[in-house]
C-alpha cells in the first residue's frame, strides 16, 4: 500500500452535514469537492420552515452558512452530480464523478430568471410537493446554490421533440445549451465523507392513512413547505383540497416508523419534536387553529426538548392524545378526515379533522445506498451506515467517514457535531497535508476613499414576504433615493442570496460606491456576509452598515403598515447619516499561543485532547481526581454490546503515552485571564502547587453526574440501586441481581420534573439494555419497566422491541401518580394500572432507579472564568443550539460531552472529536484575527490623567512616560474589547472608539428625532 496522502477530501451530500464538514475541512486547510445529486445544495434543512426547540427560521440560520461555503475558494461545489467509481486506498483515492448536463452553462448563467419567466411549460413543483408549479427550466429555491438554472428534460418541449427554444432566445447571457453533455471528472483526494442525509418513506404504500388519495392528508416535510413563507401558500396555512384555512389539524406520529411490517422498525428520532414545532407554529400563524398530536411515546430526549413539549401543552394550546391510529377516512365530498384510533384506555374512538399531517419515517435513499456500495461501505439491515460506538464517524471502509442521518436518524445539531467530527478525523489522518492544495482567496486591493464625498448605495431587502408584507418596500426605496449622499437605491427579494451578492458587487463598481447600506435583518447575523461581499468589490468592510427593518420593524409592527414603512425609512435615514461619516478601519492579526487546555479527563476530554495532539498541538489535560476515565468507569458495555472497559483502558494508555499531552491530576482552576490566542489559566495541582498554563484555546469537558435520588426509598435498602450501582452489581456477578425472580425498573427518577425539567436521554436505553441482559441470562425472572414515555430513539428502538419480545413488561405511569415503594422482605412496588384501572402491586427482589443525570455544581464558576454561560438547568450553553453545538459564544472556547447535555458514549465521542477539531482549526491558523473596532487615544489631547486606565475593565490602556514627567495613555489593541468606557470618561476627548466615534452616533440621534 502506498503511503501517499492527498490534502483534499470529497464530501457527499449538500445538506447541513455535508456543508458543515466541507466548511470545517476548508477552514483546516484542505481542498474540498462537495458532491450533491440535486441541482442546488441545501438538502432537507433548506426546505424546513422553522427548527426546534428555538423556532429559528431555518433558511435564516442556514443561508449565511451556504453563503460562506459558496464564497470559499477552497470548496468546489459539484452539484447535480454523483460518484461513479472510486479507486485507491485511504489517503490516496481517485474518485470519478459524473456531472449531469444542466443544459445551462453555469459559467454564463447569472440566475436572472428570464428563461423561467418565458418558458411555456408548467410542471408541478416537487420542491413544494406539487402545491404550486415551476417551469421546465427552473431553480428549486431563490437562494439556491449554485445560482444557476437547470432544464428538466422530462418536460422541456425541446427534449420532447417539440418546437420551442424560447429559453435560449431570451437568455441575455447565452447560457442555454441544448447540446450540453454529461461530463466525467476525476478528483484525487485523501478521504471521503458521506453525508447524503435521508429521504421520507414512500407513503403511497401506506394506504391506511390515505396519503396520495385524500387531498388533505399531507406529510411532515410537505407541511414545512406549507408553513414556510417561501412555500406554495406564502406561509398561510392552507387546506390543499379547497384553499380554505383549516381549523382542526391532526398530526399522526410514527407513520412508517417503529413499524417492522413496513420494513421500518427504527424510530425516526426527529418527528415528535418536528410535529410539536409544526403544531405550535401553525397556531402562531393562525390562532384559531386547534392542533392535535396523536402519538405513542413523545420522544423529546434532546436539550430543552421536554420544556418545549411541556410549553406546547400548556401555553401552545396543542392537544396530545396517546393512541394508536388505525386509519384515516376521507369524506369524498367535503374532504374532511375521520381519524379512527385506539386511545390509551384501549377504547376505539373517531374524530373529524380538516387536515391531517403524517409524521412519516425517514430512511437512506437508494442513491445514497448505491454510492455507499461503490465506496465499499457496510450497511445494516435497514441500509443505515454501520459504525462502532467508539469510532462513531468511521465506516467499515478505511478513509471513508460518515455524518448525519445516513448513519441513523438524527436531528440537526447531532448531524453538525458528526460532520465536524468526521472532518476532524479526516484532518487527523491527513494532518501533514494541510494547506498543500488550498489557495488563498484573491481579494482586490482596498480602494482608498479618504477625503472623497460619500457615494452611498442602499440595498433594501424584501426578505421574501418577511419585510415586504408589512413595509412598502418600493415606497421606501423611492424616498431613500432622494437623500443626500445616496447615489443608488434598489430592492431585492433576498439580499442575502448568492446571485444578489454578485449584483451588489456590480452595483458597487458601476456606481463607484464608497459606502453601502443593506436594509434588511439584524447585523448580528448578516453583517459579516455583506462585509465580505463589499470587500470583494474593493470596499473596506467598515464602510458597510445595516438598517434592521425586519426584527426591529416589519416583524414587530405587523398591524401598522404605514407607520412601519415610515419607521423603515427613518431607520435607513439614520443609517445613511451614520454611513456618511464612516471611515476605513483595518483589522489586526494578534499572536497565538499554539497549545490547548482541555478541562475534564473523562472520555470527552481525552478524545478532544487526542485529536488536538494528533494534529500536532501540545495539550494540557486537567482532571480534578487522581484518575482519568470519568463516568465511563461506571459503565459495562454499550447498547450494541461493545465492551467499554478495554476501550477505556486503551484510551487512557494512549493519552498517557502521547508526549504532546500533559495530564494534570487532582487539579482545579483558580483563575483565568486573557482571550482566544492568549489565555493564562492558573491551576492548583496535587499538593497545592500552583501553575500558570499559557494556552490559545480551551475545551470544556467537565462531564455530569448521576443524581442520588431522594425518592422511592433509595438509600434505605441495598436492593434499591441506581443504574451505576446496578451495572456494578451485574459486572461483579452478584447472584442477587442475576438470579432474581422479579426486577423492577422505574424510569424518569428525578428527570422531567419541576426541579429537573429535562429528559436525561440515556436512561431508557440503559434500562432496555440491562433488562435484555437479565432476561437472556435468566428467562424465568420477571422484569417490569415502569415508564412515562419510552425514548429508545433512532436505531435503539430495535432493542426496545427485543426486550418486549423477550417478555419484559413495560407499564406506563402518569407523573401525577408515580409508583410507590414499600420496603419489606420483598420490595412492594405499586402503581395505578392505566389500562385496566385499579392498582397493580409487584413484589420485587430488586428495584433499579433510572436516576437523572445532573450538571456539575461548579459549572457556574467555570462559566465565569471563561465568560461562557450555562442554561437555566446548569448545563453549559453552546453558541447556537442548532448550528454551533460545540462552540461557545466566547471565541476559542469549546464544549463536549455531558457538560453540554446528557448523551450516550458515541455522541460524546463525536462531540469531543468535533470540539477538538474546531479548537485545532483556530490553532492551525497561527494568529487571531481581531476587529479593528478598538479604542484609540490621540496623544495631542491626552493629558495623562489616567481615568481611562482606572475605568477599563480589560486593562487595555496604560500610562507611559513619553518624556520626563509627561504621561500619555496608550491602548493595547489585543486587550481592548471596544466597549468605549474610556471614551466616556476621557475629559479631553482624546479617547475614541474606531467605527463608533461621537459624530458617527450624534448624526443618527439628529435624524432619529428630526
Amino acid at each position, binding site marked *: 500500500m502506498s503511503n501517499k496522502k492527498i490534502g483534499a477530501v470529497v464530501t457527499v451530500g449538500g445538506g447541513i452535514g455535508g456543508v458543515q464538514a466541507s466548511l470545517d475541512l476548508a477552514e483546516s486547510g484542505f481542498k474540498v469537492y462537495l458532491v450533491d445529486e440535486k441541482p442546488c445544495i441545501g438538502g432537507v434543512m433548506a426546505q424546513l420552515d422553522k427548527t426546534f426547540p428555538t423556532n429559528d427560521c431555518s433558511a435564516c440560520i442556514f443561508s449565511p452558512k451556504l453563503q460562506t461555503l459558496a464564497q470559499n475558494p477552497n470548496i468546489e461545489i459539484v452539484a447535480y452530480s454523483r460518484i461513479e467509481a472510486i479507486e485507491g486506498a485511504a489517503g490516496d483515492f481517485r474518485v470519478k464523478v459524473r456531472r449531469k448536463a444542466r443544459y445551462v452553462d453555469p459559467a454564463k448563467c447569472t440566475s436572472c430568471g428570464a428563461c423561467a419567466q418565458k418558458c411555456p411549460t408548467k410542471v408541478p413543483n416537487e420542491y413544494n410537493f406539487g402545491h404550486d408549479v415551476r417551469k421546465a427550466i427552473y431553480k428549486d429555491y431563490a437562494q439556491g446554490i449554485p445560482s444557476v438554472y437547470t432544464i428538466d428534460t422530462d418536460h422541456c418541449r425541446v427534449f420532447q421533440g417539440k418546437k420551442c427554444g424560447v429559453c435560449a432566445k431570451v437568455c441575455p447571457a447565452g447560457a442555454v445549451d441544448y447540446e450540453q453533455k454529461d461530463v466525467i471528472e476525476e478528483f484525487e483526494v485523501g478521504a471521503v465523507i458521506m453525508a447524503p442525509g435521508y429521504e421520507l418513506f414512500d407513503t403511497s404504500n401506506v394506504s391506511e392513512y390515505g396519503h396520495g388519495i385524500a387531498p388533505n392528508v399531507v406529510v411532515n416535510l410537505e407541511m414545512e413547505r406549507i408553513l414556510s413563507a417561501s412555500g406554495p401558500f406564502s406561509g398561510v396555512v392552507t387546506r390543499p383540497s379547497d384553499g380554505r384555512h383549516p381549523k382542526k389539524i391532526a398530526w399522526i406520529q410514527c407513520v412508517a416508523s417503529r413499524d417492522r411490517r413496513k420494513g421500518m422498525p427504527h424510530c425516526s428520532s426527529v418527528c415528535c419534536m418536528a410535529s410539536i414545532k409544526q403544531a405550535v407554529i401553525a397556531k402562531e400563524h393562525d390562532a384559531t387553529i386547534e392542533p392535535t398530536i396523536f402519538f405513542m411515546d413523545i420522544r423529546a430526549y434532546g436539550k430543552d426538548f421536554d420544556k418545549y413539549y411541556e410549553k406546547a401543552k400548556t401555553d401552545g394550546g396543542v392537544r396530545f392524545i396517546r393512541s394508536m391510529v388505525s386509519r384515516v377516512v376521507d369524506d369524498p365530498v367535503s374532504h374532511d378526515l375521520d381519524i379512527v384510533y385506539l386511545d390509551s384506555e384501549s377504547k376505539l374512538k373517531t374524530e373529524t379533522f380538516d387536515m391531517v399531517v403524517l409524521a412519516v419515517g425517514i430512511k437512506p435513499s437508494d442513491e445514497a445506498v448505491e454510492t455507499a456500495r461503490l465506496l465499499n461501505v457496510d450497511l445494516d439491515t435497514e441500509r443505515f451506515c454501520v459504525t462502532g460506538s467508539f469510532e462513531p464517524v468511521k465506516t467499515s471502509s478505511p478513509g471513508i467517514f460518515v455524518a448525519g442521518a445516513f448513519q441513523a436518524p438524527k436531528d440537526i445539531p447531532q448531524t453538525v457535531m458528526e460532520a465536524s467530527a468526521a472532518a476532524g478525523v479526516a484532518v487527523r489522518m491527513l494532518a501533514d497535508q494541510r494547506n498543500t492544495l488550498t489557495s488563498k482567496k484573491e481579494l482586490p486591493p482596498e480602494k482608498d476613499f479618504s477625503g472623497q464625498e460619500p457615494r452611498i448605495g442602499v440595498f433594501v431587502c424584501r426578505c421574501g414576504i418577511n419585510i415586504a408584507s408589512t413595509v412598502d418596500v418600493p415606497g421606501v426605496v423611492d424616498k431613500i433615493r432622494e437623500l443626500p449622499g445616496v447615489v443608488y437605491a434598489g430592492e431585492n427579494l433576498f439580499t442575502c442570496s448568492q446571485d444578489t451578492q454578485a449584483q451588489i458587487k456590480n452595483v458597487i463598481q458601476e456606481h463607484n460606491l464608497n459606502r453601502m447600506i443593506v436594509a434588511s435583518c439584524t447585523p448580528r447575523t448578516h453583517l459579516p456576509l455583506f462585509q465580505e461581499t463589499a470587500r470583494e468589490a474593493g470596499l473596506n468592510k467598515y464602510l458597510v452598515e445595516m438598517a434592521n427593518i425586519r426584527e426591529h420593524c416589519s416583524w414587530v409592527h*405587523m398591524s401598522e403598515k404605514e407607520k412601519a414603512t*415610515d419607521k423603515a425609512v427613518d431607520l435607513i435615514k439614520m443609517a445613511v447619516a451614520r454611513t456618511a461619516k464612516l471611515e476605513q478601519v483595518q483589522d489586526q492579526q494578534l499572536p497565538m499561543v499554539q497549545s490547548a487546555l482541555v478541562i475534564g479527563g473523562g472520555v470527552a476530554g481525552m478524545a478532544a485532547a487526542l485529536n488536538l495532539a494528533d494534529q500536532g498541538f501540545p495539550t494540557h489535560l486537567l482532571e480534578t481526581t487522581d484518575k482519568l476515565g470519568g463516568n465511563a468507569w461506571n459503565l459495562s458495555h454499550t447498547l450494541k454490546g461493545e465492551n467499554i472497559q478495554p476501550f477505556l483502558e486503551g484510551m487512557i494508555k494512549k493519552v498517557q503515552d502521547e508526549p504532546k499531552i500533559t495530564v494534570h491530576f487532582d487539579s482545579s482552576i483558580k483563575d483565568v485571564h486573557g482571550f482566544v490566542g492568549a489565555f493564562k489559566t492558573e491551576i492548583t495541582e496535587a499538593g497545592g502547587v500552583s501553575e500558570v498554563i499559557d494556552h490559545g484555546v480551551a475545551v470544556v469537558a467537565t462531564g455530569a453526574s448521576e443524581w442520588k435520588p431522594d425518592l422511592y426509598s433509595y438509600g434505605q435498602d441495598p436492593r434499591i440501586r441506581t443504574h451505576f450501582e446496578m451495572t456494578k452489581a451485574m459486572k461483579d456477578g452478584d447472584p442477587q441481581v442475576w438470579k432474581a425472580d422479579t426486577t423492577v425498573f422505574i424510569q424518569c427518577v428525578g428527570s422531567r420534573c419541576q426541579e429537573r425539567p429535562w429528559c436525561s436521554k440515556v436512561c431508557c436505553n440503559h434500562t432496555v439494555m440491562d433488562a435484555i441482559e437479565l432476561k437472556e441470562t435468566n428467562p424465568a425472572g420477571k422484569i417490569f419497566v415502569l415508564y412515562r414515555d419510552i425514548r429508545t430513539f433512532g436505531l435503539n428502538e430495535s432493542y426496545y422491541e427485543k426486550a418486549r419480545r423477550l417478555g419484559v413488561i413495560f407499564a406506563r405511569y402518569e407523573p401525577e401518580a408515580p409508583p410507590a415503594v414499600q420496603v419489606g422482605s420483598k420490595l412492594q412496588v405499586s402503581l395505578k394500572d392505566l389500562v385496566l384501572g385499579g392498582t397493580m402491586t409487584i413484589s420485587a427482589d430488586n428495584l433499579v432507579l433510572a436516576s437523572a443525570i445532573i450538571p456539575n455544581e461548579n459549572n457556574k464558576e467555570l462559566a465565569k472564568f471563561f465568560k461562557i454561560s450555562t442554561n437555566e438547568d446548569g448545563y453549559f450553553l453552546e453558541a447556537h443550539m442548532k448550528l454551533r453545538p460545540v462552540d461557545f459564544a466566547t471565541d476559542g472556547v469549546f464544549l463536549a460531552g455531558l457538560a453540554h447535555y446528557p448523551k450516550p458514549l458515541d455522541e460524546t465521542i463525536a462531540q469531543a472529536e468535533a470540539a477538538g477539531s474546531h479548537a485545532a482549526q483556530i490553532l492551525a491558523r497561527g494568529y487571531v484575527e481581531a476587529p479593528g*473596532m478598538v479604542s484609540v487615544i490621540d496623544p495631542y489631547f491626552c493629558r495623562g490623567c489616567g481615568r481611562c486606565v482606572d475605568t477599563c475593565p480589560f486593562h487595555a490602556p496604560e500610562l507611559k512616560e513619553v518624556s520626563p514627567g509627561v504621561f500619555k495613555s496608550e491602548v493595547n489593541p489585543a486587550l481592548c474589547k471596544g*466597549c468605549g468606557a474610556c471614551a*466616556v470618561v476621557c475629559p479631553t476627548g482624546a479617547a475614541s472608539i474606531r467605527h463608533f466615534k461621537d459624530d458617527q452616533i450624534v448624526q443618527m*440621534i439628529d435624524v432619529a428625532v428630526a
Partner: protein
Amino acid sequence: MPEEFDPKIVAFACNWCSYAGADLAGVGRMQYPPSIRLIRLMCSGMLVPSYILRAFEKGADGVLVTG
C-alpha cells in the same frame, strides 16, 4: 379633536444584550408601537451622557438606555 400623542423615543442598545433582545422580540413577533428608533452601540458603557441631552435637545420625548 385632540391628536393622539405619538412620542418620539430614541433608544440606545448594547449590541450583545439589549440589541439581541430586540432581535428576539422580532423573531418572537412581539408587537409594540412603532414610535421607537433604536441606535446600536457596541456596549452601553459607550454611551456618552451628552448623547441623551442631544436627543432631548433635538426634540425627543423620551430616551431609553438599555444594556
